[in-house]
């Protein structure tokens, strides 16, 4: 059930009405049933994977909590982590490893001993990367004593399967979400209003901006052979904005729906296009994943405690893991590794050069604005350059569906080889003319509106700023959003980009 579907439009009000009619003590169980139903709407059989992951993590955490010996605790921790990761590997990475080993054997002229495997037909279960990370974090947190063990299996299942965040995050932490799920909730007009506005903002980002931009992005990337210079720059920039609007739109709907139920989820985005450098960007983009990786991988490796090459390795390694989490294919992995390399270079520059320069206090405010914005633009284009590889796998999938056999290196080679040919006339203007100039200018207008509102809201959420204003302004905003969604939404019920992870 997609958030941008008619089914959800029926599901949510019905769910919410029953949720508030029920007595407090029964609500969690109803939410659990709704969550399992929500997940089974995609493919009922994958509920077993969800339950496997839930069962393993719940039992191993329980055993960790019950064991007094460190060795036993470690063994249960290892069991929980390995079995969960094993399931993820089987369903997400087995094909990837098999393809690579097959290729490697061919390269060195050996016969690959594994016959054409049965798992070639496995379809990636929706949300598996997300719920596996929920359960891994829980097991680790119980082991570290960060969160108490949850003894009620059904309640723990609700924590893992809680429907607003099950399929595409935010990835919750047990010590944050479980108390939220437990606390009694009353109907609160202001809270529900703010949740509803948040949902409308998410829907606006998804159907009005992201799905509109996808029209241009698809045209540019699907015709990558002919794309050069500005066409690639524009296509890749719009793709970056599309992914942001798509994913943050999903998160907004999830957070808004959950807020209406009185359950706060962690924020997943914080104005990422205002990031002044790459490290700053990761504190604003997919925050629940980046904090997960920071807490459970980066700090484990030593974070910034060591110096020089060790830090460089840590940064690149974490970003590579991040890429692998996003997709079992080389373009995705290398896309994030490339951003990791850029971050490492920046770190070395900061550590070895910038730190040695005495900071100047003579900047005027205008110089600061210019410098900050220059940094933002550089950060945006660096990420755009890296995320271009992110899109390559979609091109391969698109061409494979058409019966064409093209390697990702060829597609990436063309795109990266031609992006600097800025003097050549590209075909972007033809795409705009074909789709209608109005369509494109509306897209640009809505991006402007988004950046403007995010800029004006500052560190606050947009909906919090809206509800502070006078009724006439508020109502005008509500009506503007509804009218835009109805008139300018692209209603092809396209999936959210992050569902594939």
């Amino acid at each position, binding site marked *: 059930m997609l958030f941008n579907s008619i089914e959800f439009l029926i599901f949510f009000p019905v769910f919410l009405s029953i949720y508030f009619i029920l007595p407090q003590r029964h609500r969690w169980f109803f939410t659990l049933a709704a969550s399992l139903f929500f997940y089974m709407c995609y493919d009922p059989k994958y509920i077993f994977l969800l339950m496997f992951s839930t069962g393993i993590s719940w039992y191993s955490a329980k055993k960790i909590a019950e064991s007094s010996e460190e060795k036993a605790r470690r063994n249960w921790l290892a069991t929980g982590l390995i079995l969960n990761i094993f399931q993820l590997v089987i369903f997400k990475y087995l094909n990837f490893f098999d393809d690579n080993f097959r290729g490697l054997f061919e390269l060195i002229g050996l016969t690959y001993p594994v016959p054409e495997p049965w798992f070639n037909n496995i379809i990636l279960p929706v949300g598996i990367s997300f719920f596996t990370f929920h359960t891994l974090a829980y097991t680790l947190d119980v082991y570290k004593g960060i969160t108490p063990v949850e003894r009620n299996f059904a309640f723990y299942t609700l924590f893992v399967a809680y429907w607003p965040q099950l399929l595409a995050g935010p990835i919750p932490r047990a010590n944050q979400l479980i108390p939220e799920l437990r606390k009694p909730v009353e109907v609160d007009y202001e809270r529900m209003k703010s949740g509803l506005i948040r949902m409308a903002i998410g829907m606006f980002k998804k*159907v009005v901006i992201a799905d509109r931009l996808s029209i241009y992005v698809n045209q540019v990337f699907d015709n990558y052979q002919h794309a050069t210079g500005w066409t690639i720059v524009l296509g890749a920039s719009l793709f970056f904005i599309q992914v942001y609007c798509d994913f943050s739109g999903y998160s907004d709907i999830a957070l808004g729906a959950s807020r209406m139920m009185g359950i706060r989820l962690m924020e997943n985005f914080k104005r990422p296009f205002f990031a002044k450098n790459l490290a700053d960007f990761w504190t604003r983009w997919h925050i629940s994943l980046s904090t997960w990786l920071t807490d459970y991988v980066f700090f484990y490796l030593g974070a910034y405690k060591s110096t020089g090459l060790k830090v460089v390795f840590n940064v690149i390694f974490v970003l590579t893991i991040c890429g692998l989490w996003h997709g079992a294919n080389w373009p995705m992995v290398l896309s994030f590794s490339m951003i990791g390399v850029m971050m490492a270079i920046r770190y070395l520059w900061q550590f070895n050069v910038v730190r040695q320069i005495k900071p100047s206090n003579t900047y005027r405010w205008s110089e600061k604005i210019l410098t900050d914005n220059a940094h933002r633009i550089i950060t945006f284009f660096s990420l755009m350059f890296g995320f271009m590889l992110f899109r390559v796998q979609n091109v391969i999938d698109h061409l494979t569906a058409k019966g064409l056999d093209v390697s990702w290196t060829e597609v990436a080679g063309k795109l990266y080889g031609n992006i600097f040919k800025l003097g050549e006339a590209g075909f972007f203007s033809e795409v705009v003319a*074909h789709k209608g100039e*109005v*369509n494109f200018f509306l897209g640009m207008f809505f991006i402007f509106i988004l950046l403007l509102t995010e800029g004006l809201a500052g560190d606050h959420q947009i909906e919090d700023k809206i509800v502070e204003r006078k009724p006439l302004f508020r*109502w005008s905003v509500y*009506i503007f959003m509804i009218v835009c969604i*109805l*008139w*300018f939404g692209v*209603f092809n019920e396209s999936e959210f980009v992050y569902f594939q992870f």
Partner: protein
Amino acid sequence: MFKLVKNTLLVLAISLVIVITVGALLSPFGWGDSTFYTKSKYFLDHPEKFNGVYVGGSLEYRHIDPYVIDSIANKRGVDLRSFNLGNDGYNLPLQVWVTENLLKKNEGNLKYIFLSLSSDPLFYKGILHTKEWNYWQNPKSVLFSIRVLYQMDLPSKIQRQFSRFYINSLAENMLKFGMMDDLIQFHAKPVLADSLYLGHRKNGYFPYDDEERYLSLRNDLPEEIVSKMQNNELSKIDYQQNYLKRDSLELLWSNSFATYVPGKKPVPLYLDTYMDLHKKCAEKGIKLIFVMPPKGRTDYQLLQAIYDQLPSDSRINLADPRVYPEFFTLENGYNYHHMNAKGSEIYSKKLGMQIANLISK
């Protein structure tokens, strides 16, 4: 909770009023379908050139050459200057909608309307949610379509399904659901179909052969046209090769006429609507002639039952394969449901003679 529901509904209601009112005010006749808009604009902009019009779907658009028909009529001393306003995929409710609009927009020049008797409210589901399908929907048409669906002898599942489609399409059109950018684009710079879609004599006739020949010369075609061409090509190849399907279709049509028992009860609303249109036309001094073309996708027994009830001086039947085998030969066919340019010329001549017979009386 009550306050939230109340305020949400109020915001929704205000938004809907704005959306529906502004949307309706901004929607000119024929805006959503570039081919139909191009054709209807040309026709309505040149009232001095034409006094007759053919209304229908592809069976008219691709088959009726007004030049041939006008020539035949003129030889009989009848002043006929006709235009082919047929358009691909235009089914019964669309044809009725076009005819009613023509009556409203008539500047007194129209003397003849030739309305196709070839379809029902069913349609190809692939066109759902497109502006080409949504833009014309109005409550009256939708109500008419649903009522006809329920009067036809169809499985109840189909009746429910298509009724839902019509209601959804109406809602999408009233709300201009995802269509406003197209509408603004239309006002800013209308995307007109290539003037060749008017036909090389600018009389609205454009057979498939011409389209294929013309489009194959171009290499800058948008994806949807390329895909349409590919579909046309595939249907043509299939038609030429699959003689079993070809023969069985022809047999089906022949049997429809052979086994038809006169006196069959027509779909009441279908007939009433046609009779009402006939009356409205007569009041405006326009002769409305119903033409039953060959190779339709509808049940011919259903059409024949209506045909029998229509005034005998206002109807033409060219659909029976036993009477007109030439429309069904491979040589004259383009695909299963359409003739090629050669077949269309033969068809136009036959139709021209019948029209001349009727209007010269």
